[in-house]
């Protein structure tokens, strides 16, 4: 029968192996190997420490403290719930003190009272009252293993990495349970069948969960749409819900003096733009690509960099910050590795952005900051040039001679209506055409079309409480336009964009923020609740069809490239959402919101200070000194209390501290000769009865029994003298009984 410790302890080298694999996946191999070395080093190092409950409790508190420090660090760095989760991959490090305390502790297990102040108090009280208290013990081996597995799997992207992880998991599972199976003497075929069933179920379950995830998030069972916010945006159109945006401050904006006047400064900060509308979803379609099918535009065009922190989004923009040009300063926390930058639409240069490694953008003006620090602080310089980073509405078709005539060469993504091939989408497009006809938009100038549509939306109401439900027969946007006439900004922006397109104006759907609120310090505060969607229309442009001189030939057919391009116009922000929506969203800021604002701004300022080079050295020195002192103190304390063991301690299953003595050995011998001692019979009584001990011989029995009783509950070993005396008394007793036995 295996002891409880053996049952609950992982097999040798498993923990070390798992930690090493954790290091491989999380790219902290050196740290992982060090940890594995310390954990498995107990097999060779014969030093142990008698930590006691107090010592284990300290190790636990140290681990908890490290975890909270990690949480705090990631809170400062990234903020938000998902930012906090960045602490997960470091869990094996946080819980290292606890596993080391167990590994090098003399007990080999941790008393459960070490984990709870209440249990500890209960134990103290019980001891104070003289009551017995048996604290259950916990072996931290498998929990630590589970922590390592969770940490390993936390940030594994891609099917290759996840497949490797699954394989690793299977090996760990097999080794762990094979070890337990041997200890528990489980019937081997049953064990193998169980493992096979688990593997099959887990495999099926993983596939099922993935499909479920895609179905819930994308409405289909297969991985299709990218989840990158730059390429797709699922709107709340057609959902019955209340739109609740975060009141937390996202960005802080300051304008240089030259553009501080309300009429001069931009009203919007754009984060992403989209040009294709499917059912409730806005996505990207490459203006330079094929109109059929869906071609995404990754934000992969890297901005040019002249100096550190300078990124030019258009040609020849580095001069923009040479003199005192107007700029907008933007500060805020970055929550992910690739963060969408909120920028005014005419931004040509990003400067003073030392915290950003790389800037990418796509043809619709969506700009991403890659590998940025937790906090970024940069200046956006506006350009008056026409060669903006936003591509003009265009399409390119490669056609052969036969298809030229029958092809829809007029297709422009920015003029496309609802793309889904359903009855409801067709109805929506029909309704749009009806409204355009009703308003007579096609006969108006561009400016008047916009005014007419704005007038059309005047009878609509803003509401964040969405009640329009999409159904197969009728599109939610149709209901919005025809009957409901109330919704939030996504309704207005989507409907407005489609109406403008139906009216012949190339339009994109844009999301970002509105700059509206100013705090006491004079900074403009951009909250989550300032998040907005609006239209970006291309006005004043003229279209032309260009037939390329490049002719390609494939399988005997000649292909020619045709381009339809708008030129000469400019992109203009048009917001159809009724004015006053922002007051509805941002009113009723409670005192806790204000307090959170102040704390967040303080944290961001501190983080910005921390990211400065001169501050970094000060902080690193201070932290290093504290860490070193702590480490030295711990090593000094451990060095003082170390014990040397000859072999790894094995805890017995005996929960009570009595140990067999030499008299027990004698009892066994006597039982062989005189028959077994009756169960429950006290040794004293039994010895007296054996062989009719005489009065003068009782002294020998009493002497041996007296020593036996004294030693049984004694923790310290006997002195040499006492030991020999006890041995002599037992020998006397043995001699007495052997004489009696001989006499018969």
């Amino acid at each position, binding site marked *: 029968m295996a002891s409880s410790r053996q049952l609950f302890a992982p097999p040798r080298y498993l923990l070390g192996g798992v930690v090493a694999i954790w290091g491989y996946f999380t790219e902290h191999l050196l740290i992982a190997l060090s940890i594995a070395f310390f954990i498995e080093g107990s097999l060779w190092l014969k030093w142990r420490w008698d930590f006691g409950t107090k010592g284990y409790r300290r190790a636990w508190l140290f681990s908890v403290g490290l975890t909270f420090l990690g949480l705090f660090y990631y809170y400062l760095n990234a903020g938000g719930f998902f930012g906090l989760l960045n602490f997960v991959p470091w869990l094996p490090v946080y819980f290292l003190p606890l596993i080391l305390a167990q590994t090098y502790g003399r007990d080999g297990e941790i008393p459960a009272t070490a984990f709870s102040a209440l249990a500890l108090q*209960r134990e103290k009280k019980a001891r104070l009252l003289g009551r017995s208290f048996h604290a259950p013990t916990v072996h931290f081996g498998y929990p630590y293993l589970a922590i390592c597995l969770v940490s390993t799997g936390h940030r*594994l992207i891609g099917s290759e990495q996840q497949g490797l992880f699954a394989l690793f998991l299977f090996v760990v599972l097999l080794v762990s349970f094979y070890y337990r199976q041997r200890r528990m003497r489980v019937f081997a075929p049953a064990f193998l069948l*169980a493992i096979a069933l688990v593997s099959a179920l887990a495999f099926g379950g993983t596939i099922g969960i993935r499909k479920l995830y895609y179905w819930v998030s994308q409405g289909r069972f297969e991985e299709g749409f990218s989840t990158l916010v730059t390429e797709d945006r699922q709107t709340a159109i057609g959902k019955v819900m209340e739109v609740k945006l975060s009141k937390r401050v996202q960005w802080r904006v300051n304008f240089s003096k030259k553009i501080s006047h309300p009429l001069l400064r931009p009203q919007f900060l754009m984060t992403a733009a989209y040009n294709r509308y499917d059912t409730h979803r806005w996505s990207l379609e490459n203006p330079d690509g094929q109109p059929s099918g869906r071609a995404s535009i990754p934000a992969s065009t890297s901005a040019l960099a002249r100096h550190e922190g300078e990124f030019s989004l258009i040609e020849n923009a580095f001069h923009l910050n040479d003199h005192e040009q107007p700029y907008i300063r933007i500060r805020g926390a970055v929550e992910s590795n690739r963060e969408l930058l909120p920028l005014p639409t005419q931004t040509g240069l990003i400067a003073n952005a030392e915290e950003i490694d790389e800037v990418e953008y796509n043809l619709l003006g969506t700009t991403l900051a890659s590998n940025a620090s937790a906090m970024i602080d940069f200046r956006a310089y506006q350009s008056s040039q026409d060669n903006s980073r936003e591509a003009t509405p265009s399409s390119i078709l490669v056609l052969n001679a036969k298809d030229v005539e029958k092809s829809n060469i007029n297709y422009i993504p920015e003029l496309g209506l609802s793309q889904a091939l359903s009855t409801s989408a067709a109805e929506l497009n029909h309704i749009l055409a009806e409204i355009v006809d009703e308003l007579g938009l096609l006969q108006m100038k561009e400016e008047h079309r916009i005014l007419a549509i704005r007038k059309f939306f005047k009878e609509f109401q803003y509401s964040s409480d969405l009640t329009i439900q999409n159904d197969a027969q009728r599109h939610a946007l149709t209901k919005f336009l025809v009957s409901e006439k109330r919704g939030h900004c996504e309704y207005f922006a989507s409907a407005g964009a489609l109406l403008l397109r139906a009216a012949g104006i190339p339009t994109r759907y844009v999301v970002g923020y509105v700059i509206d609120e100013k705090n006491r310090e004079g900074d403009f505060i951009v909250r989550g609740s300032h998040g907005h969607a609006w239209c970006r229309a291309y006005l004043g442009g003229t279209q032309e069809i260009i037939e390329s001189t490049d002719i390609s030939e494939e399988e005997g057919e000649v292909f020619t490239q045709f381009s339809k391009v708008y030129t000469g116009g400019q992109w203009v922000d048009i917001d159809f959402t009724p004015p006053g929506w922002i007051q509805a969203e941002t009113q009723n800021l409670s005192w806790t919101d204000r307090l959170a604002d102040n704390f967040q701004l303080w944290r961001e300022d501190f983080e910005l200070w921390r990211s400065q080079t001169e501050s970094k050295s000060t902080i690193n020195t201070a932290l290093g000194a504290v860490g070193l002192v702590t480490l030295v103190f711990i090593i000094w304390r451990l060095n003082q209390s170390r014990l040397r063991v000859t072999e790894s301690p094995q805890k017995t299953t005996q929960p009570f501290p009595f140990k067999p003595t030499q008299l027990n050995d004698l009892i066994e011998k006597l039982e062989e000769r005189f028959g077994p001692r009756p169960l429950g019979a006290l040794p004293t009584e039994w010895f007296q009865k054996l062989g009719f001990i005489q009065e003068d011989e009782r002294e020998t029995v009493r002497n041996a029994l007296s020593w036996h009783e004294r030693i049984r509950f004694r923790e310290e070993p006997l002195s040499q003298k006492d030991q020999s005396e006890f041995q002599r008394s037992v020998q006397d007793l043995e001699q007495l009984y052997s004489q009696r036995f001989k006499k018969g």
Partner: protein
Amino acid sequence: MISQGIRPFGWGVAGLIVLSAVLGTDVVRSANHILFCVAVAMLLVSFCWIWTRRVQFSAKRELPEFARVGEAFRYPITLENQGYRCVHSALIQEWANDPRPSLEQFVSNPEPGEDSRNIVDRFFLYYRWTFLCDENRQFEPFGSPLVESLKPSESSELWLNFCPTKRGRVRLMDLRALLPDPLGLFQRNVPLECEAEELFVLPRKLQLTTFSLPKAPTPKAGPELSYHRAGVSEDFLRLRDYRPGDAPRTIAWKTWAKTGTPHVREFESEGNIRHGLVLDSFAESLPCFEAAVSLVSTLLLDSQEDYPQFSNFYSAEESFVLKQRDQLPKRLMRLFAEIEPVRESDQFELLSQQVLRKKTRVHSLLIVFSHWTPQHEEFLKHLERAEIHAITLVVCEKRDKAPPNQRVHFLQRSQLASDFAQFAEQTSSLI
């Protein structure tokens, strides 16, 4: 209960499911959903597996008659597979009684030191609940022997570890086979066909220092004086086997005739100094009473050579004449196992009667109280009036009162051994 069907590893896997579910919601960026699926699959397979496990064992225990609180021992059980299938990996365990207190017990038995707890604890009384659960738990099953494999109609002998945690008569009536699944996450517990058996659990043994009782003052002459006869008087002590050299007048002829082997009678001189031990069961605090019983039983059951020999034991229920240091009547041992505290003080009359009826047999008394009230004081005065020399030990929660005289000693329950050592030192100085 559900918790009894889940093994520690099962709880661990359940925790892993929660953790991986929280952290693995994004299947694109995290692989923890795989961990989640593996953990759920393990739970599912294990849970379904245990329903396929069957066992049909009959068992027979061979229990000792007595055991002691806190002292582990082993006893054999014989298992026989009466089913038609071979059973693999079954753990055998004695199923403990339900330790939850009744409403009456919960209401009337406060936890010692409860008044010193904070207002929240005193309001919710959770600590009282855990205290009474601990008190009611008669034994802790620890370690379950494993039946690796037992074919149909085969039998096997196993040894069960057993450690009583509470004094009393323990009735073992629920022997179970725990049938874990191959992964060890769940277990099915099946009651075995086994006759119920009883075991008397004696009080916990205390580690006491040796001590001596002071000699009683010389009795005055009077009508109650026991030494009123001339000559040497002897009391019958016991019967023993005849040994060559024994005086023929000591031979017990009737016993010889009955048993067929020669026996002799042994006598004890009345002039030997004899001490009596009194246990009072009038108690208010249950732990104090338990400590008092432990103290008395340790003095009698584990008497060392240096201890005074007690020739009589008195309790309100019964009194015993103790013939030999190492051979206590089984009835007395059962009394130690089963004696219960009483709340009525009228049992002092019974106790007085028991003591006074046989007072001529003892020279002094060691009285152990678990409570101190005016009635106790009155009882002592009553003994004093009857010219019985008594030394009294009062086991109490706190030694906050001064003893009324030198012959009364308060022993704090939480430090009983050290207080007893102090008492032993004081009495030795009197000698």
